[in-house]
Protein backbone atom coordinates (compact mmCIF):
# COMPACT_ATOMS: atom_id res chain seq x y z
CA UNK A 1 0.00 0.00 0.00
CA UNK A 2 1.43 3.33 -1.00
CA UNK A 3 1.87 6.25 1.39
CA UNK A 4 -0.85 8.14 -0.39
CA UNK A 5 -3.40 5.34 0.06
CA UNK A 6 -2.43 5.02 3.72
CA UNK A 7 -3.02 8.69 4.23
CA UNK A 8 -6.40 8.59 2.52
CA UNK A 9 -7.44 5.64 4.68
CA UNK A 10 -6.41 7.51 7.79
CA UNK A 11 -8.36 10.62 6.73
CA UNK A 12 -11.43 8.50 6.05
CA UNK A 13 -11.12 6.68 9.36
CA UNK A 14 -10.83 9.97 11.17
CA UNK A 15 -13.91 11.35 9.38
CA UNK A 16 -15.94 8.25 10.27
CA UNK A 17 -14.94 8.51 13.90
CA UNK A 18 -15.93 12.17 14.06
CA UNK A 19 -19.29 11.31 12.51
CA UNK A 20 -19.91 8.48 14.98
CA UNK A 21 -18.93 10.70 17.86
CA UNK A 22 -21.36 13.35 16.63
CA UNK A 23 -24.15 10.79 16.41
CA UNK A 24 -23.41 9.49 19.90
CA UNK A 25 -23.62 12.95 21.38
CA UNK A 26 -26.66 14.04 19.41
CA UNK A 27 -28.82 10.93 19.81
CA UNK A 28 -27.58 9.76 23.18
CA UNK A 29 -25.96 6.64 21.83
CA UNK A 30 -23.41 5.11 24.14
CA UNK A 31 -19.88 5.40 22.89
CA UNK A 32 -19.25 1.82 23.75
CA UNK A 33 -17.84 0.95 20.36
CA UNK A 34 -16.36 4.25 19.41
CA UNK A 35 -12.72 4.90 20.31
CA UNK A 36 -11.94 8.17 21.89
CA UNK A 37 -11.91 10.71 19.13
CA UNK A 38 -9.36 12.88 20.86
CA UNK A 39 -6.97 9.99 20.92
CA UNK A 40 -7.44 9.40 17.21
CA UNK A 41 -7.08 13.10 16.60
CA UNK A 42 -3.73 13.14 18.34
CA UNK A 43 -2.61 10.12 16.40
CA UNK A 44 -3.61 11.76 13.13
CA UNK A 45 -1.71 14.93 13.89
CA UNK A 46 1.32 12.88 14.72
CA UNK A 47 1.03 10.95 11.47
CA UNK A 48 0.66 14.18 9.51
CA UNK A 49 3.79 15.57 11.13
CA UNK A 50 5.73 12.40 10.37
CA UNK A 51 4.51 12.43 6.77
CA UNK A 52 5.70 15.97 6.32
CA UNK A 53 9.03 15.35 7.91
CA UNK A 54 9.64 12.23 5.83
CA UNK A 55 8.69 14.12 2.72
CA UNK A 56 11.00 17.00 3.55
CA UNK A 57 13.88 14.68 4.36
CA UNK A 58 13.41 12.93 1.03
CA UNK A 59 13.73 16.13 -0.97
CA UNK A 60 16.67 16.25 -3.37
CA UNK A 61 17.89 19.02 -5.59
CA UNK A 62 16.80 18.88 -9.23
CA UNK A 63 19.81 18.05 -11.40
CA UNK A 64 20.80 20.42 -14.24
CA UNK A 65 18.61 23.19 -12.88
CA UNK A 66 20.38 26.56 -12.73
CA UNK A 67 18.69 28.97 -10.38
CA UNK A 68 19.08 32.69 -11.05
CA UNK A 69 18.53 34.88 -8.05
CA UNK A 70 16.94 38.29 -8.79
CA UNK A 71 17.14 41.33 -6.59
CA UNK A 72 13.57 42.57 -6.89
CA UNK A 73 14.41 45.94 -5.32
CA UNK A 74 16.90 46.64 -8.08
CA UNK A 75 14.38 46.34 -10.93
CA UNK A 76 13.51 49.71 -12.49
CA UNK A 77 9.92 49.80 -13.82
CA UNK A 78 9.58 50.72 -17.50
CA UNK A 79 7.30 53.79 -17.84
CA UNK A 80 4.26 53.71 -20.16
CA UNK A 81 4.91 55.59 -23.41
CA UNK A 82 3.22 58.99 -23.41
CA UNK A 83 1.77 60.51 -26.60
CA UNK A 84 2.45 64.11 -27.61
CA UNK A 85 0.32 66.61 -25.73
CA UNK A 86 -1.76 67.69 -28.74
CA UNK A 87 -2.94 64.20 -29.75
CA UNK A 88 -5.72 62.76 -27.57
CA UNK A 89 -5.70 59.08 -26.77
CA UNK A 90 -8.60 57.25 -28.44
CA UNK A 91 -9.26 53.96 -26.66
CA UNK A 92 -10.87 51.09 -28.54
CA UNK A 93 -14.57 51.13 -27.57
CA UNK A 94 -16.44 48.22 -26.13
CA UNK A 95 -19.16 46.67 -28.30
CA UNK A 96 -21.94 48.37 -26.40
CA UNK A 97 -24.53 51.01 -27.25
CA UNK A 98 -27.44 52.80 -25.60
CA UNK A 99 -31.01 51.79 -26.49
CA UNK A 100 -33.48 54.72 -26.62
CA UNK A 101 -37.13 53.73 -26.16
CA UNK A 102 -38.76 56.51 -28.23
CA UNK A 103 -40.94 57.57 -25.30
CA UNK A 104 -38.94 59.72 -22.93
CA UNK A 105 -35.26 58.75 -22.97
CA UNK A 106 -32.47 61.17 -23.91
CA UNK A 107 -28.89 62.27 -23.22
CA UNK A 108 -28.03 65.86 -22.43
CA UNK A 109 -25.17 68.04 -21.26
CA UNK A 110 -24.10 71.63 -20.89
CA UNK A 111 -20.49 70.61 -20.36
CA UNK A 112 -19.19 71.21 -23.88
CA UNK A 113 -18.98 74.33 -26.01
CA UNK A 114 -19.16 74.05 -29.80
CA UNK A 115 -19.44 77.80 -30.38
CA UNK A 116 -15.96 77.86 -31.93
CA UNK A 117 -16.85 75.48 -34.77
CA UNK A 118 -20.57 74.62 -34.97
CA UNK A 119 -21.45 78.22 -35.62
CA UNK A 120 -22.07 80.61 -38.45
CA UNK A 121 -19.20 80.57 -40.93
CA UNK A 122 -17.23 77.77 -39.27
CA UNK A 123 -16.34 74.48 -40.98
CA UNK A 124 -17.49 71.39 -39.12
CA UNK A 125 -18.31 67.69 -39.53
CA UNK A 126 -20.71 65.59 -37.45
CA UNK A 127 -20.65 61.79 -37.63
CA UNK A 128 -22.86 59.29 -35.79
CA UNK A 129 -23.29 55.53 -35.66
CA UNK A 130 -26.86 54.42 -34.95
CA UNK A 131 -29.44 51.70 -35.62
CA UNK A 132 -33.09 52.78 -36.12
CA UNK A 133 -35.79 50.64 -34.58
CA UNK A 134 -39.33 50.87 -35.93
CA UNK A 135 -42.42 49.39 -34.38
CA UNK A 136 -43.88 46.52 -36.40
CA UNK A 137 -41.20 47.14 -39.01
CA UNK A 138 -42.69 50.46 -40.14
CA UNK A 139 -41.49 54.02 -39.76
CA UNK A 140 -44.76 54.93 -38.07
CA UNK A 141 -43.88 57.65 -35.67
CA UNK A 142 -40.27 58.20 -34.84
CA UNK A 143 -37.92 61.06 -35.54
CA UNK A 144 -34.24 60.40 -35.04
CA UNK A 145 -32.42 63.18 -33.18
CA UNK A 146 -28.70 62.54 -33.54
CA UNK A 147 -27.16 65.66 -32.03
CA UNK A 148 -28.46 69.14 -31.39
CA UNK A 149 -28.33 72.34 -29.45
CA UNK A 150 -31.77 73.86 -29.67
CA UNK A 151 -32.79 76.92 -27.72
CA UNK A 152 -36.51 77.25 -28.34
CA UNK A 153 -36.47 80.90 -27.39
CA UNK A 154 -39.82 80.88 -25.66
CA UNK A 155 -42.13 82.91 -27.91
CA UNK A 156 -40.95 86.42 -28.78
CA UNK A 157 -37.41 85.17 -29.14
CA UNK A 158 -36.80 82.91 -32.12
CA UNK A 159 -35.11 79.51 -31.88
CA UNK A 160 -31.37 79.25 -32.29
CA UNK A 161 -28.94 76.39 -32.46
CA UNK A 162 -28.22 73.43 -34.74
CA UNK A 163 -29.79 70.03 -35.26
CA UNK A 164 -28.87 66.88 -37.16
CA UNK A 165 -31.95 64.69 -37.39
CA UNK A 166 -33.94 62.34 -39.62
CA UNK A 167 -37.63 61.76 -40.25
CA UNK A 168 -38.14 58.17 -41.42
CA UNK A 169 -41.80 58.96 -42.13
CA UNK A 170 -40.79 60.81 -45.26
CA UNK A 171 -37.32 59.26 -45.69
CA UNK A 172 -35.46 62.51 -45.07
CA UNK A 173 -32.29 63.48 -43.22
CA UNK A 174 -31.96 67.13 -42.20
CA UNK A 175 -29.31 69.49 -40.95
CA UNK A 176 -30.38 72.90 -39.70
CA UNK A 177 -28.71 75.89 -38.14
CA UNK A 178 -30.50 78.98 -36.80
CA UNK A 179 -29.53 82.44 -35.60
CA UNK A 180 -32.24 84.51 -33.94
CA UNK A 181 -31.11 88.10 -33.62
CA UNK A 182 -32.52 90.47 -34.83
CA UNK A 183 -34.73 88.07 -36.83
CA UNK A 184 -34.88 84.39 -37.63
CA UNK A 185 -32.23 83.06 -39.99
CA UNK A 186 -32.40 79.46 -41.20
CA UNK A 187 -29.99 77.24 -43.02
CA UNK A 188 -31.58 73.87 -43.65
CA UNK A 189 -30.72 71.17 -46.15
CA UNK A 190 -32.02 67.67 -46.58
CA UNK A 191 -31.24 64.45 -48.36
CA UNK A 192 -33.47 61.50 -49.17
CA UNK A 193 -32.63 58.10 -47.75
CA UNK A 194 -34.66 55.09 -46.60
CA UNK A 195 -33.34 53.54 -43.44
CA UNK A 196 -34.09 49.91 -42.62
CA UNK A 197 -35.07 49.07 -39.07
CA UNK A 198 -32.45 47.05 -37.23
CA UNK A 199 -29.50 47.94 -39.47
CA UNK A 200 -26.47 49.97 -38.41
CA UNK A 201 -25.71 53.21 -40.25
CA UNK A 202 -22.93 55.75 -40.25
CA UNK A 203 -24.32 59.21 -41.00
CA UNK A 204 -21.82 61.99 -41.63
CA UNK A 205 -22.65 65.61 -42.39
CA UNK A 206 -20.20 68.34 -43.41
CA UNK A 207 -20.96 72.06 -43.43
CA UNK A 208 -19.17 75.37 -43.87
CA UNK A 209 -21.65 76.93 -41.44
CA UNK A 210 -22.96 79.53 -43.87
CA UNK A 211 -24.40 78.06 -47.08
CA UNK A 212 -27.03 75.32 -47.28
CA UNK A 213 -25.69 74.39 -50.73
CA UNK A 214 -22.45 73.30 -49.07
CA UNK A 215 -24.08 70.91 -46.62
CA UNK A 216 -23.12 67.39 -47.68
CA UNK A 217 -24.58 64.15 -46.34
CA UNK A 218 -22.80 60.78 -46.40
CA UNK A 219 -24.50 57.55 -45.37
CA UNK A 220 -22.22 54.54 -44.93
CA UNK A 221 -19.49 56.47 -46.73
CA UNK A 222 -21.55 57.30 -49.82
CA UNK A 223 -22.53 60.90 -50.56
CA UNK A 224 -26.28 61.50 -50.94
CA UNK A 225 -27.47 64.46 -53.08
CA UNK A 226 -28.46 67.52 -51.04
CA UNK A 227 -31.61 69.59 -51.43
CA UNK A 228 -31.61 73.09 -49.90
CA UNK A 229 -34.80 74.00 -48.03
CA UNK A 230 -33.87 77.39 -46.60
CA UNK A 231 -30.75 79.45 -46.92
CA UNK A 232 -31.03 82.76 -45.11
CA UNK A 233 -28.23 82.15 -42.68
CA UNK A 234 -26.42 85.34 -43.64
CA UNK A 235 -26.88 87.58 -40.64
CA UNK A 236 -23.86 88.97 -38.86
CA UNK A 237 -25.18 87.27 -35.73
CA UNK A 238 -24.03 83.92 -34.49
CA UNK A 239 -25.52 81.25 -32.29
CA UNK A 240 -25.46 82.22 -28.63
CA UNK A 241 -24.45 79.09 -26.78
CA UNK A 242 -24.71 80.85 -23.45
CA UNK A 243 -28.48 81.11 -23.64
CA UNK A 244 -30.72 79.94 -20.85
CA UNK A 245 -31.74 76.64 -22.43
CA UNK A 246 -28.18 75.71 -23.22
CA UNK A 247 -28.28 71.95 -23.44
CA UNK A 248 -26.84 69.67 -26.07
CA UNK A 249 -29.03 66.64 -26.64
CA UNK A 250 -29.14 63.20 -28.20
CA UNK A 251 -32.46 61.41 -28.66
CA UNK A 252 -34.80 64.36 -28.46
CA UNK A 253 -35.13 67.94 -29.49
CA UNK A 254 -35.24 70.40 -26.63
CA UNK A 255 -35.95 70.66 -22.99
CA UNK A 256 -37.54 74.02 -22.42
CA UNK A 257 -38.59 74.95 -18.91
CA UNK A 258 -42.05 76.00 -20.14
CA UNK A 259 -42.70 72.96 -22.32
CA UNK A 260 -40.17 70.44 -21.07
CA UNK A 261 -40.91 67.35 -23.08
CA UNK A 262 -43.57 68.32 -25.60
CA UNK A 263 -41.64 67.08 -28.58
CA UNK A 264 -40.72 63.99 -30.56
CA UNK A 265 -38.33 61.38 -29.26
CA UNK A 266 -36.07 58.83 -30.88
CA UNK A 267 -36.27 55.06 -30.97
CA UNK A 268 -32.84 53.85 -31.93
CA UNK A 269 -29.67 52.22 -30.67
CA UNK A 270 -26.94 54.83 -30.49
CA UNK A 271 -23.27 53.87 -30.52
CA UNK A 272 -21.15 57.00 -30.90
CA UNK A 273 -20.81 60.62 -32.00
CA UNK A 274 -17.81 62.50 -33.35
CA UNK A 275 -17.50 66.18 -34.29
CA UNK A 276 -14.56 67.85 -36.05
CA UNK A 277 -13.86 71.54 -36.53
CA UNK A 278 -13.13 71.00 -40.23
CA UNK A 279 -14.79 69.53 -43.29
CA UNK A 280 -13.64 65.95 -43.71
CA UNK A 281 -12.82 64.79 -47.23
CA UNK A 282 -14.81 61.95 -48.86
CA UNK A 283 -11.77 59.68 -48.41
CA UNK A 284 -11.61 60.48 -44.69
CA UNK A 285 -15.33 59.86 -44.31
CA UNK A 286 -14.96 56.50 -46.05
CA UNK A 287 -12.08 55.68 -43.74
CA UNK A 288 -14.22 56.52 -40.71
CA UNK A 289 -17.03 54.36 -42.03
CA UNK A 290 -14.72 51.44 -42.73
CA UNK A 291 -13.32 51.59 -39.21
CA UNK A 292 -16.70 50.37 -38.00
CA UNK A 293 -16.89 49.63 -34.33
CA UNK A 294 -13.18 50.11 -33.79
CA UNK A 295 -13.34 53.84 -34.48
CA UNK A 296 -9.65 54.03 -33.82
CA UNK A 297 -7.73 56.07 -34.52
CA UNK A 298 -9.97 58.91 -35.67
CA UNK A 299 -9.05 60.69 -38.87
CA UNK A 300 -7.88 64.26 -38.36
CA UNK A 301 -7.54 63.51 -34.68
CA UNK A 302 -6.03 66.92 -33.97
CA UNK A 303 -9.29 68.50 -35.21
CA UNK A 304 -11.57 66.12 -33.31
CA UNK A 305 -13.58 68.26 -30.88
CA UNK A 306 -16.33 65.98 -29.58
CA UNK A 307 -16.30 62.25 -29.05
CA UNK A 308 -19.36 61.00 -27.22
CA UNK A 309 -18.92 57.43 -25.99
CA UNK A 310 -22.21 55.73 -25.09
CA UNK A 311 -20.28 52.45 -25.24
CA UNK A 312 -18.43 53.55 -22.09
CA UNK A 313 -21.54 54.63 -20.17
CA UNK A 314 -21.37 54.24 -16.40
CA UNK A 315 -24.51 53.57 -14.38
CA UNK A 316 -25.04 55.57 -11.19
CA UNK A 317 -27.06 53.35 -8.88
CA UNK A 318 -27.99 56.26 -6.62
CA UNK A 319 -29.15 58.74 -9.25
CA UNK A 320 -30.46 55.93 -11.52
CA UNK A 321 -28.84 57.59 -14.54
CA UNK A 322 -26.02 56.89 -16.94
CA UNK A 323 -22.98 59.10 -17.14
CA UNK A 324 -21.93 59.05 -20.79
CA UNK A 325 -18.33 60.21 -21.34
CA UNK A 326 -17.32 62.81 -23.89
CA UNK A 327 -13.60 62.24 -24.02
CA UNK A 328 -12.20 65.26 -25.87
CA UNK A 329 -13.40 68.23 -23.80
CA UNK A 330 -13.74 66.18 -21.56
CA UNK A 331 -17.31 66.33 -20.35
CA UNK A 332 -20.10 63.91 -19.53
CA UNK A 333 -23.61 63.62 -20.89
CA UNK A 334 -26.33 62.45 -18.51
CA UNK A 335 -29.14 60.08 -19.37
CA UNK A 336 -32.74 60.87 -18.54
CA UNK A 337 -35.40 58.22 -17.90
CA UNK A 338 -33.10 55.38 -18.95
CA UNK A 339 -32.72 52.10 -17.13
CA UNK A 340 -29.55 50.12 -16.55
CA UNK A 341 -30.63 47.53 -19.12
CA UNK A 342 -30.51 50.22 -21.82
CA UNK A 343 -26.76 49.68 -22.23
CA UNK A 344 -26.95 46.79 -24.68
CA UNK A 345 -24.31 44.50 -26.16
CA UNK A 346 -24.62 45.76 -29.71
CA UNK A 347 -22.44 47.86 -31.99
CA UNK A 348 -21.63 48.41 -35.67
CA UNK A 349 -19.35 45.63 -36.90
Amino acid at each position, binding site marked *: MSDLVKKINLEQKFANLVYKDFQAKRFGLTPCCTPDVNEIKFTKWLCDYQDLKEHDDALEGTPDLDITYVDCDAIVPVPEPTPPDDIPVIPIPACQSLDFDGV*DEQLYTSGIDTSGYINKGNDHTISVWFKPLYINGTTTFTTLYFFNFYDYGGGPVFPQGFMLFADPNNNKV*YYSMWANDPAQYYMTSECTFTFTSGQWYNLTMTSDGIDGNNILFYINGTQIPTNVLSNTFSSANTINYGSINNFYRVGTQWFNSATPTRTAWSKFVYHSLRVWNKILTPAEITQEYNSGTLLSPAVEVANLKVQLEPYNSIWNNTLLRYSVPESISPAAFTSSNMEQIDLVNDCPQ
Partner: protein
Amino acid sequence: MSNRYFIIDSSDPNLDTILGYSVEDLTSVRRREDDTKYVIKLRNGDTNNYPELALYVEYNINQILLTMNDADWQFDLNILIGS
Protein backbone atom coordinates in the same frame (compact mmCIF):
# COMPACT_ATOMS: atom_id res chain seq x y z
CA MET B 1 -39.22 42.31 -17.49
CA SER B 2 -40.31 45.19 -19.70
CA ASN B 3 -41.25 48.68 -18.63
CA ARG B 4 -44.93 49.48 -17.99
CA TYR B 5 -46.50 52.65 -19.38
CA PHE B 6 -49.64 54.59 -18.44
CA ILE B 7 -51.18 57.70 -19.97
CA ILE B 8 -52.56 59.71 -17.07
CA ASP B 9 -54.45 62.98 -16.78
CA SER B 10 -52.25 65.92 -15.87
CA SER B 11 -55.10 67.07 -13.59
CA ASP B 12 -55.14 63.82 -11.62
CA PRO B 13 -55.35 64.70 -7.90
CA ASN B 14 -52.93 61.88 -7.18
CA LEU B 15 -50.34 63.21 -9.65
CA ASP B 16 -47.59 63.71 -7.09
CA THR B 17 -48.05 60.20 -5.74
CA ILE B 18 -48.01 58.71 -9.23
CA LEU B 19 -44.89 60.64 -10.16
CA GLY B 20 -43.25 59.08 -7.15
CA TYR B 21 -43.69 55.70 -8.81
CA SER B 22 -42.21 56.74 -12.14
CA VAL B 23 -38.62 56.71 -13.32
CA GLU B 24 -37.92 60.37 -12.75
CA ASP B 25 -40.05 63.46 -12.17
CA LEU B 26 -42.47 65.92 -13.76
CA THR B 27 -39.71 67.74 -15.63
CA SER B 28 -38.82 64.63 -17.60
CA VAL B 29 -42.16 62.93 -18.27
CA ARG B 30 -43.47 62.78 -21.83
CA ARG B 31 -46.37 65.22 -22.35
CA ARG B 32 -49.12 65.53 -24.91
CA GLU B 33 -49.06 68.66 -27.06
CA ASP B 34 -52.01 70.24 -25.19
CA ASP B 35 -50.42 69.35 -21.84
CA THR B 36 -53.51 67.42 -20.67
CA LYS B 37 -51.83 64.00 -20.58
CA TYR B 38 -48.57 62.61 -19.24
CA VAL B 39 -46.86 59.29 -19.93
CA ILE B 40 -45.82 57.56 -16.73
CA LYS B 41 -43.19 54.85 -17.00
CA LEU B 42 -42.73 52.28 -14.26
CA ARG B 43 -39.19 51.04 -14.14
CA ASN B 44 -38.24 47.60 -15.32
CA GLY B 45 -39.22 45.06 -12.68
CA ASP B 46 -41.84 47.22 -10.90
CA THR B 47 -44.83 44.87 -10.78
CA ASN B 48 -46.76 46.68 -8.06
CA ASN B 49 -50.45 47.33 -8.65
CA TYR B 50 -50.62 50.91 -7.50
CA PRO B 51 -54.21 51.94 -6.63
CA GLU B 52 -53.70 55.41 -8.17
CA LEU B 53 -53.06 53.77 -11.56
CA ALA B 54 -55.91 51.27 -11.36
CA LEU B 55 -58.24 53.32 -13.58
CA TYR B 56 -55.68 53.81 -16.33
CA VAL B 57 -54.83 51.53 -19.23
CA GLU B 58 -51.46 49.82 -19.04
CA TYR B 59 -49.33 49.70 -22.21
CA ASN B 60 -46.15 47.93 -23.24
CA ILE B 61 -43.51 49.78 -25.25
CA ASN B 62 -44.96 48.97 -28.69
CA GLN B 63 -48.49 49.84 -27.61
CA ILE B 64 -47.56 53.18 -26.08
CA LEU B 65 -45.56 54.24 -29.14
CA LEU B 66 -48.38 53.37 -31.51
CA THR B 67 -50.86 55.18 -29.25
CA MET B 68 -48.74 58.32 -29.41
CA ASN B 69 -48.43 58.13 -33.18
CA ASP B 70 -50.59 61.16 -33.91
CA ALA B 71 -50.40 64.93 -33.97
CA ASP B 72 -51.44 65.17 -30.34
CA TRP B 73 -48.13 63.69 -29.28
CA GLN B 74 -45.78 64.49 -32.16
CA PHE B 75 -43.95 67.69 -32.90
CA ASP B 76 -44.43 69.54 -36.18
CA LEU B 77 -41.04 69.25 -37.88
CA ASN B 78 -41.80 72.16 -40.20
CA ILE B 79 -41.02 74.46 -37.30
CA LEU B 80 -37.49 73.11 -37.30
CA ILE B 81 -36.72 73.27 -40.98
CA GLY B 82 -38.13 76.74 -41.62
CA SER B 83 -40.65 75.71 -44.26
